C-alpha cells in the first residue's frame, strides 16, 4: 500500500493528487536535492546514505559513463573525459570560456554554443548539467514514490540572464519543470525562516564552499528578498584549505610529490581528514603511508589557523567591500547565515562572528541549507501550502461538492481548505448514449444531498454519445481570494464545457454553519448506512437496466427457456431487495443475479468478438 505523509491541517490532497516538489542545489563541487515531507524539510540521500552528489560527469565513446562519486574517481585517470565544475561554464560564450578558462578543451565548431571535447563528442555545459539534474531527479522520484510536479533550483546571486536561462534549459532537458530559480543566499535565508519575520531586516549570507566563495547582503522587505550587493572569489574555498595543509606536510616531512599522482591524492585525503578533526578537537593526528613515503605528525589548531589566516582574511576583505557597495556598516547586519562545508572550520566562524559582532547562524547543516531552503520554497510554489505571500488567507467554511447518482454528495473541496483554491475531479456518464449531464453544486458535510445546502445547478450539454462510463468529464471547483466559487465542467474528448459562478457562503450565518457541521457528526452512523444503501441501490439500478437492454436484444438467441426464467427470477429478487432498507441484502441479490447471468454474458461476449473477426484473416491481427 502507498506510503502516506502527514499534511498541514485542511491541506490533505485527494488520492493520486499529491504534488511532489523538490529543491535542488546545483553546486559547483557538489549538488543536493531536498523535499518537504510531513512538514519537515530534509535532503534526500542516495542508497548509500550520501546526500551530496559530486557535480562530476564522466563520458566514454557510448555517452555518459558515470555521474557523481564514480565519475569523480575517474577524474585522475581519465581527465579529458571527466567534466567537473561545469557550473563555472554554463551560459558562457566561446570567447568568455577561452578568456577565463583557457585550459578547457572546446570543440572548434562554428556552433554558437560552446561544446566541450569528450570521447562522446562535443557536449554543452547545459547537457552536462542536465545529467547531474537527472541523477538528482531519479533519486527524488525513487525517494518520494512519484514524479515531481516541479522543482526550485538555486543559482548564485551574480548569475546573469544567460546563465539563468541555461540553467533552466538544463532542467528542461532533464525532464524537470522549474517552478522558479532562486538565489542561493535567498534559499539559505528561507531555510532559517528569516522570510517569516514580520519586520524588514538586512542580513548577510557568507558562503564558503569547496571551490568558491560568495558574500551577499540581502534586504527583506514585506516578504520579498532583494540582493543589495554580492561579491566573491570564484577560486577560493575548501580546496585551498586542503592545499595549505598539504604544503605544510611537505615542508614538515621533507617528502617530495614530483610526478607522484598517487601520493598527491593520498596527501589530500590526509589533509582533509586533519581539517575535519580540527573542527572538533585542538590537535589532529596525521599519518602518511603511500609506497615508500611514510611520515607521522601532529597539526595543532594554532598552526592550522596560521596556515589559513590569509585565506580567511581574503573573505573578510570581500565582506568589507560588499558592505561598502551596499552603503552599509557591519553593525547594520541583523543576521549572518553561514553556508558551505568550509564554514565548519572554527577559525572561519570566529573571524566572521567577530567581523559582524554577533553570533552567526550555523544550526542547519551548512552543506544542506541551500537545498533545504529551495525545498521549502518549492513546497509553497507547487501549492502544498497556502501561499504565505498572500495577505488574504481565508478558509472554506463548509465542504463544497456535487450530487452524484443516488442523491449522494461527492465532496470536492473539503471544509477548512484555505482559499484561493482549485480542485478538479473526473466524472463519467451513467447511461449509454448520454449526451447531457446535470450538475448540482452543494455545500455541507452530510452524505445525502437532501441534508446539504443547494448552491446551484447547471447542465453540460453536447456530450458526444458514448458507452456509459467512457466519457471523461472534468469538474473543476475554484474558489478565488474573495470566496467566489466557479464550477466548470468540461468533457475531455470533445471539449464541450459549461460553468456557473456562485458565492458559496452567501446567506449562511456562523450559527447555521455550526449547526450543519454538528448535524453531520450526530448523524455519522446513520449517514454511513444510508450511503451504503444508496450506493447499492444505484448499482442495482444500473445492473437491471443493462440486463433489460441486453435481453431485449438477444435473449432468444442465447438463452434456453430455463436459463431465462432463472435470470428473471434473480432479477425479481433484486428488485424486491432494492425496495428494502438492507444494503447487504441488495448486495447478495446482486451477486446472485451476476452468477445467474454469467453464462449469458460470456456467450454474448464471444458472439461480439466473433462478429468482429468474421471476414478477416489472421494476418489482419499481426
Amino acid at each position, binding site marked *: 500500500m*502507498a*506510503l*502516506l505523509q502527514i*499534511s498541514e491541517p485542511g491541506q490533505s490532497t485527494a*488520492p493520486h493528487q499529491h504534488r511532489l516538489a523538490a529543491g535542488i542545489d546545483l553546486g559547483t563541487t557538489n549538488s543536493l536535492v531536498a523535499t518537504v515531507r510531513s512538514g519537515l524539510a530534509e535532503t534526500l540521500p542516495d542508497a548509500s546514505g550520501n546526500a551530496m552528489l559530486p557535480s562530476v560527469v564522466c563520458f566514454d565513446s557510448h555517452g555518459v559513463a558515470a555521474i557523481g562519486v564514480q565519475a569523480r574517481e575517474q577524474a585522475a585517470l581519465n581527465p579529458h573525459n571527466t567534466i567537473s565544475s561545469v557550473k563555472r561554464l554554463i551560459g558562457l560564450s566561446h570567447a568568455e570560456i577561452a578568456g577565463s578558462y583557457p585550459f578547457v578543451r572546446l570543440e572548434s565548431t562554428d556552433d554558437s554554443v560552446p561544446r566541450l571535447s569528450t570521447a562522446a563528442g562535443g557536449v554543452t555545459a547545459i547537457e552536462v548539467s542536465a545529467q547531474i539534474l537527472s541523477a538528482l531527479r531519479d533519486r527524488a522520484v*525513487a525517494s518520494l514514490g512519484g514524479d515531481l510536479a516541479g522543482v526550485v533550483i538555486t543559482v548564485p546571486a551574480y548569475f546573469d540572464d544567460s546563465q539563468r536561462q541555461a540553467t533552466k534549459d538544463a532542467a528542461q532537458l532533464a525532464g524537470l519543470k522549474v517552478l522558479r530559480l532562486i538565489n542561493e543566499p535567498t534559499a539559505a535565508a528561507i531555510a532559517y525562516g528569516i522570510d517569516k519575520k514580520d519586520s524588514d531586516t538586512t542580513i548577510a549570507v557568507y558562503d564558503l564552499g569547496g571551490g568558491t566563495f560568495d558574500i551577499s547582503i540581502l534586504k527583506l522587505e514585506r516578504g520579498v528578498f532583494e540582493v543589495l550587493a554580492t561579491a566573491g572569489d570564484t577560486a577560493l574555498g575548501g580546496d585551498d584549505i586542503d592545499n595549505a595543509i598539504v604544503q605544510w606536510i611537505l615542508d614538515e616531512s621533507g617528502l617530495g610529490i614530483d610526478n607522484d599522482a598517487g601520493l598527491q591524492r593520498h596527501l589530500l585525503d590526509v589533509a582533509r581528514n586533519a581539517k575535519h578533526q580540527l573542527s572538533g578537537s585542538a590537535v589532529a593526528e596525521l599519518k602518511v603511508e603511500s609506497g615508500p613515503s611514510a611520515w607521522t605528525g601532529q597539526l595543532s589548531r594554532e598552526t592550522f589557523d596560521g596556515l589559513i589566516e590569509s585565506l580567511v582574511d581574503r573573505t573578510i576583505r570581500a565582506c568589507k567591500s560588499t558592505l561598502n557597495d551596499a552603503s552599509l556598516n557591519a553593525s547594520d547586519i541583523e543576521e549572518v547565515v553561514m553556508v558551505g562545508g568550509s564554514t565548519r572550520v572554527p577559525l572561519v566562524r570566529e573571524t566572521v562572528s567577530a567581523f559582524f559582532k554577533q553570533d552567526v547562524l550555523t544550526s542547519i547543516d551548512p552543506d544542506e541549507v541551500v537545498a533545504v531552503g529551495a525545498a521549502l520554497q518549492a513546497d509553497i510554489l507547487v501549492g502544498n501550502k497556502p501561499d504565505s505571500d498572500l495577505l488574504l488567507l481565508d478558509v472554506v467554511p463548509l465542504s463544497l461538492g456535487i450530487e452524484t447518482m443516488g442523491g449522494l454528495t461527492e465532496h470536492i473541496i473539503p471544509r477548512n481548505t484555505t482559499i484561493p483554491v482549485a480542485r478538479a475531479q473526473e466524472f463519467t456518464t451513467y447511461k449509454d448514449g448520454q449526451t447531457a449531464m446535470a450538475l448540482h453544486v452543494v455545500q455541507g458535510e452530510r452524505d445525502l444531498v437532501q441534508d446539504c445546502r443547494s448552491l446551484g445547478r447547471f447542465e453540460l450539454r453536447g456530450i458526444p454519445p458514448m458507452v456509459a462510463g467512457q466519457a471523461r468529464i472534468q469538474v473543476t471547483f475554484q474558489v478565488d481570494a474573495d470566496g467566489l466559487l466557479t464550477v466548470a465542467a468540461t468533457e475531455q474528448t470533445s471539449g464541450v464545457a459549461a460553468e456557473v459562478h456562485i458565492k458559496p457562503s452567501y446567506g449562511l450565518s456562523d450559527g447555521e454553519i455550526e449547526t450543519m457541521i454538528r448535524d453531520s*457528526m450526530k448523524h*455519522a*452512523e446513520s*449517514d454511513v448506512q444510508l450511503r451504503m444503501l444508496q450506493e447499492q441501490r444505484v448499482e442495482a439500478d444500473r445492473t437491471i437496466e443493462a440486463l433489460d437492454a441486453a435481453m431485449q436484444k438477444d435473449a432468444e438467441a442465447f438463452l434456453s427457456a430455463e436459463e431465462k426464467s432463472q435470470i428473471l427470477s434473480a432479477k425479481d429478487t433484486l428488485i424486491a431487495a432494492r425496495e428494502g432498507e438492507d444494503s447487504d441484502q441488495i448486495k447478495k441479490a446482486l451477486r446472485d443475479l451476476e452468477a445467474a447471468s454469467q453464462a449469458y454474458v460470456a456467450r454474448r461476449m464471444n458472439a461480439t468478438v466473433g462478429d468482429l473477426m468474421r471476414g478477416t484473416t489472421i494476418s489482419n491481427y499481426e
Partner: protein
Amino acid sequence: MAITLTDAAADRVKNFIDNRGKGVGLRLGVRTTGCSGMAYVLEFADEVEETDVVFEDNDVKVVVDPKSLVYLDGTELDFGKEGLNEGFKFKNPNVKDECGCGESFNV
C-alpha cells in the same frame, strides 16, 4: 476499540511535531473520494473540536472525528520504508478492498 500507533510511527510523529513547533497531535480521517471509495486523511492536529474523539497511544494524541471513526476504528498506524521511499501506512481492519496504490479503499 481504539486507534493505535506502532513505536516507529509514534517516534516519527513526535519528531515531526517537535520540528513543526506546534500541534496537539495527529488527525486521522477519511474522505469520500478517490478511485476506490474512500481516501485517508493524515494531518497535524492544531486543535481538537468538541465532537472529536481523542485516543492516546505511545505518547501521541490521535484525533478523529466521529464520522471518520466509523471507518477507522481498530486501525493501527505504522511507519515503514520501501527502498528510498518512506512514509505512514494504515492497517485498517475495516477495509474490504483497496485500489492498487492503497491510497483509497472500500468498507
